[in-house]
């Protein structure tokens, strides 16, 4: 475990330009240093900007590295908050324009970013993204951080905390949508002196990067949410189970944990009360199934990540057989704001039984790939076309895939459907963790189903037969279809087998594995038939050789 220097206190924290300013700066340039922009040298941009501002004699401006600014497609991004100017595709050798703009900011400028990408969003989980330095606790506190925890510890009982979360209507943001308040109550009432709080940061769905962005941009929020949860369920130890594929998120979490411990927000006697709680990080090792809660527990215990039958649920018998609360990153991220602003405020957002907001990662064939947060009930059309800016190259929309490998593809006819846990289930998909992958007419839906089946058979842990054998069989049939070698009998067999796996697999991975097949069959059966009967791939993705067409 290598030490990560606390850069909040090191040389990389700004330069003379910001320190000489004193008082509040006239203008601030926010430079996105989340993974996506970082890979395009955004750290270099921060340094060049600070240096350039100092050379230009701008003593009352600040250059600040922050987390994700959301519009990843146009990165690296630099934003000047006061004038709401967003500079896109910035290069380290070309920052003069930004320095000039910084110089022109007037003290009276207070604008908010314009355009549907920004205006249609409601930021709760992501309220600090792009605003705070992820490795600076003071930044977080300045924006209301730890207010909720302090109030909880000084004025509230654990029952009151659970009650507020229940009344907010918050549901699990990992995908299944189990009421968070109910889960907390189950853990709190479970017998046992030792209880654990676990944060599931094993964001395995391909095409999903919400949790990564939150962890990289606002790690203290997760720690605060977990501490509140620990108080509410009487736990003193917590684990964050994070993917090893997210080194930047892990590094920032480690730094955040150390800074929080030093400031008395983690460890013994938190915020000068008798409440103790500490957090450790455990790294995943590239197994998708570890997002399943019982497999995740096995992995934290140092074993192969294989799930076990439930009940008993982890809330009663979890980590080392103790009652264990497991929530997803985004669920914990909602907690501090709910307690700060009140459950009634929170439950005003949303639709029906789906309250609050949802963070989505937009990816695929969409103009504005990136991270967005919208109230539940926003329509897919608003998400894809208004916020997302439509399809790349102006091609026709074909489907949007939600819910990862357990989800489904939603066709154009449902674009005006408000998005909620219930509505997505109705159309044969699944909320999942929040990856939205947009597809245009260059995607073949049979090929997409095959892609997800390949994923599932590869990630199957091998414990139960329906998943281990069944997903491979499904893949082989789909492969035959895409090669133009399948018959209508094969299609019937595909549907039959998919139904059996859905009913008999041990965990969510296997039970959800047939979903992409069901949903593509439901809406794009004609594409399957084109492959099987006409031996043609309408999207031109699958290579069906002429010889096969003849036969």
């Amino acid at each position, binding site marked *: *475990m290598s030490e990560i220097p606390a850069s909040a206190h090191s040389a990389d924290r700004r330069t003379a330009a910001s320190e000489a300013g004193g008082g509040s700066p006239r203008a601030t340039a926010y430079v996105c240093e989340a*993974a*996506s922009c*970082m*890979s*395009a040298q955004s750290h270099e941009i921060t340094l060049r900007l600070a240096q350039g501002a100092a050379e230009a004699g701008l003593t009352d401006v600040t250059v600040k590295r922050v987390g994700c600014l959301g519009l*990843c*497609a146009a*990165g690296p991004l630099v934003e000047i908050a006061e004038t709401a100017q967003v500079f896109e595709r910035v290069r380290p050798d070309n920052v003069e324009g930004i320095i000039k703009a910084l110089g022109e900011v007037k003290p009276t400028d207070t604008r908010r970013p314009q355009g549907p990408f920004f205006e249609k969003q409601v930021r709760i989980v992501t309220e600090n993204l792009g605003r705070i330095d992820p490795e600076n606790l003071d930044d977080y506190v300045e924006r209301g951080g730890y207010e909720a925890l302090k109030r909880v510890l000084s004025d509230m009982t654990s029952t009151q905390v659970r009650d507020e979360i229940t009344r907010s209507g918050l549901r699990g943001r990992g995908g299944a949508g189990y009421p968070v308040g109910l889960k907390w109550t189950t853990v709190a009432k479970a017998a046992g002196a030792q209880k654990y709080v676990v944060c599931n940061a094993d*964001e*395995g*769905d*391909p*095409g*999903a*990067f919400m949790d*990564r962005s939150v962890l990289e941009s606002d790690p203290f929020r997760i720690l605060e949410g977990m501490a509140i949860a620990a108080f509410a369920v009487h736990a003193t130890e917590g684990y964050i189970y994070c993917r*090893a*594929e*997210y*080194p930047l998120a892990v590094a920032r979490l480690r730094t955040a944990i150390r800074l929080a411990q030093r400031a008395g927000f983690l460890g013994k006697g938190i915020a000068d009360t008798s409440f103790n709680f500490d957090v450790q990080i*455990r*790294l*995943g*090792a*590239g*197994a*998708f199934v570890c997002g399943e809660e019982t497999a995740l527990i096995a*992995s*934290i*215990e*140092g*074993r*192969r*990540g294989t799930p076990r039958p439930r009940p008993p649920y982890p809330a009663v018998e979890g980590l080392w057989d103790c009652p264990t609360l497991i929530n997803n990153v985004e669920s914990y991220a909602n907690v501090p704001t709910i307690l700060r602003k009140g459950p009634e405020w929170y439950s005003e957002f949303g639709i029906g039984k789906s309250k609050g907001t949802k963070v989505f*990662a*937009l*990816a*695929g*064939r969409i103009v504005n*790939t*990136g991270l967005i947060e919208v109230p539940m009930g926003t329509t897919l059309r608003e998400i894809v076309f208004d916020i997302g800016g439509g399809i790349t190259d102006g091609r026709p929309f074909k489907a949007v*895939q939600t819910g*990862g490998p357990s989800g489904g593809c939603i066709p154009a006819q449902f674009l005006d459907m408000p998005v909620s846990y219930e509505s997505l289930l109705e159309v044969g998909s699944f909320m999942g963790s929040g*990856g939205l*992958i947009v*597809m245009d007419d*260059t*995607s073949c839906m049979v090929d*997409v189903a095959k*892609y*997800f089946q390949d*994923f599932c058979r590869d*990630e199957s*842990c091998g414990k139960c037969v329906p998943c281990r054998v069944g997903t491979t069989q499904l893949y082989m049939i789909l492969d035959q279809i895409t090669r133009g070698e399948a018959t209508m009998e094969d299609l019937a067999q595909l549907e039959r087998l998919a139904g059996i796996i859905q009913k008999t697999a041990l965990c969510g991975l296997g039970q959800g594995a047939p979903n992409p097949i069901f949903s593509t069959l439901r809406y794009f059966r004609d594409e399957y038939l084109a492959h099987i009967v006409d031996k043609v791939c309408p999207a031109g993705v699958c290579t069906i050789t002429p010889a096969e067409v003849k036969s």
Partner: protein
Amino acid sequence: MPVLHAKPHPPSDDKRWKIVETRMRRIGDRPAALIEALHAAQEAFGYLDTDALIYVGDTLGVPHSRVYGVATFYSFFTLKPQGEHTCVVCTGTACYINGAKDILAGLDRDLHVKPKQTTEDGKISVLTARCVGSCSLAPAVIVDGEVKGKVNVDELVAQLEAM
């Protein structure tokens, strides 16, 4: 939990074992530290050889069979030495529909190397990842730890060949 067995000595004098030892001790030399220990060993040595597996297992009191089981279960761990450079091709959904298949085909065509293989000269190992979370940069690859977005396969091959 008391440790009932004598702590084994590291397989060699290599200083990197110290890092592995420290990381195991921090979690209390318990079986629960197994995955963390394997991470430490792989970070230090690049892969997990038999000596590493035996040493970690003996220190934590985990049977060798279980150490091997865990090391082979998780796709992040590798039991073979890697090439000088690694090129991880993301095959997440966003990268897939934006052409990850073509990148893998290009690497196979020009460098004659498939996923989980190393070029004959031992220079470049090609791996795949399920999703590196850089979906906005699709298709993405990670060359020696550095994410490259919106990859053009010919440029990538040229870069790898120049390494």
